[in-house]
């Protein structure tokens, strides 16, 4: 069941075709798999390996390098609180302590109802709006302990479902390349000529 479903297999093949080599599609496909299942399972890695032509061990080798891929279930909402310098200067540690108390779990833990996973995060690129957090990689800026309480209560009450899709859903909009407009990817060894617009003249 954690292999990609038919719709996603079709999408996966489209994504693979965009790259000169199939393995390049691995990270986008891991995201797709995580979107479908909430995390990355063994069967999923087996399937992705089949799709791009590598072993499941190679898929795991790549996937395990990246922070965003989870290999066991996480909460519906992954709350990442930034703790790097600018946020630390503006009270990130207090915010984390407050979150731990509010949720009743330590950083890294998941609440018993499976709603929330709380985690330390590294710089989230919103440093001037410190302290920051992300819920499923969507921002909340200049967060006070009261803001955090509100956020968690609203998430629990299901009031923010539009803003924060469940964990795994990365971008709600996907790139779609219309077939009639696509140039198409070729393996590098199949390209030997200079691009047409250079008119045979070498670029500098």
């Amino acid at each position, binding site marked *: 069941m954690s292999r990609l479903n038919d719709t996603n297999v079709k999408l996966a093949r489209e994504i693979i075709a*965009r*790259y*000169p*080599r199939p*393995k*390049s599609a691995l*990270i*986008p496909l*891991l*995201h797709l798999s995580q979107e479908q299942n909430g995390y990355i399972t063994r069967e999923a890695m087996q399937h992705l390996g089949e799709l*791009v032509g*590598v072993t499941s061990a190679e898929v795991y*080798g*790549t996937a395990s*390098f*990246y*922070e*965003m*891929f989870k290999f066991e279930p996480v909460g519906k909402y992954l709350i990442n609180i930034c703790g*790097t*310098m*600018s946020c*630390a*200067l503006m009270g990130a540690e207090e915010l984390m302590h407050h979150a731990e108390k509010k949720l009743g779990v330590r950083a890294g833990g998941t609440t018993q109802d499976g709603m929330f996973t709380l985690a330390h995060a*590294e*710089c*989230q*690129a*919103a*440093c*001037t*709006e*410190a302290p920051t957090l*992300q819920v499923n*990689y969507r*921002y909340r*800026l200049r967060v006070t302990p009261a803001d955090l309480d509100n956020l968690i209560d609203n998430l629990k009450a299901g009031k923010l479902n539009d803003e924060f899709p469940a964990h795994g859903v*990365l*971008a709600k*909009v996907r*790139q*779609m*390349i*219309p077939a*009639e*407009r*696509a*140039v*198409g*990817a070729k393996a*590098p060894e199949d390209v030997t000529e*200079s*691009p*047409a*617009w*250079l008119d045979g*003249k*070498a*670029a*500098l």
Partner: protein
Amino acid sequence: MSKTYVHAPGFVAGDRPKIVTSRFEFADSFTLERYLATDGYKGLRAALARPANEIHEDVKSATVLGRGGAGFPAGTKWGLTPQQVWPRYLVVNGDESEPGTYKDRLLMERDPHQLIEGCLIACYAAGLSQCFLYIRGEMALAQERVATALNEAYAAGYVGKNILGSKFSVDIILHWGAGAYVVGEETALIESLEGNRGMPRLKPPFFPAANGLYGQPTIVNNVETLANLPWLLCNGVAAYTAIGTKTSPGTRMVAVSGHVKRPGVYEIINGTTTFRDLIYGQEFCGGIRNDNALKTFVPGGGSAPWFTPDQLDLPFEASQVGPAGSMLGSGAVMVMDETTDIPAAALTLTHFYAHESCGKCTPCREGGTWLERILRRVVDGNGTDADLQQLLEVGAMICPGAFPHAANEKLGLTAVPFPYKMTTICFVGPSAFAPVHSALTLFRSEFEARVKKRVTIPVTAVGVSA
């Protein structure tokens, strides 16, 4: 549509020349409609009307500096590709994650078409036949905005086959990252794009321009660098170099965070704006919070050695900041006021780099980890004076020789210029040491107050009278 000013979270406009942020004031700045209404894709049309090598020449003579960190001129970088080796690729580095830095995220979220147009101009000029836009995974909104913009641009004929009816054809592929700081290093970015663990490649070759994606010539450019190109093509080289200085023309985006009154991202004039302007100027941050005294600041992202008030009058000019002992890096200033606990602040950065080490080079993997452990012990009050020496010794294994630091009149220090020597492939290892070294050099007394003196137990041989 009427011009409604919307404050992009974090961005502060001003009465200054705008090259890359000119559309940020519009609420719909990210739509194709707004883009076309404000000179959108005019630069591309101008480029397509001329031969590719002329466009490359323009970018070279305008000295468009790389905005990713190293500050290498884009036009020169494009010229490093070997002759007659095809295909060549463009990889856009949107994996922005240097502590303190965020400009690429705003550029992707608020003006994605400008970036797309910049990619197209680069591909046209340097003969690059496919473009991969690598966006950091944690930036969901940027992913969505760029995906929407690409879909619009494909449908309208700006990207893909025979762009605007010309012979120029290129696909731009949106690629997702998945959370790894080191992937911002260009060879690691390429590894990641090939579907591998994002570990930097052994150097030489020093530039992916010779041997990059799939072993082919590859240009890796930062988002902000490419976002400069549409304006350059619309307004010409002379207009571009008229802003800023000869060696640092144009503008650059700088994020100022920490203990200032008005933290924000500012588009500043390159080369002339000083750190004092930026931190105290009324059009910028307006001073330190509560009018406190400035203690120290990080001038160029978490990897940069720190400056103190002595260096406030330095401009954003690499040729002056380097000899003064630091770097401009990725345009991020982090300000600390007099209330800051320096050892604890340094620890947040050292923890970051130790955590983000990919593990390929031993000095970084082991050294970074030990720097963090020892520093944490000191911050927690369990350190001894021997630990302070130990920190410097571990650092010397990552960066042998003198490590850059700023001059300081009160401490009687003269500057050690940038850069440093390193025993690692990339800058993650040295970056773990930079905050430790700066903090220990400039604020040693704060560490000494934190540590216990190690008790030396006198050893006397049994039966021998002293």
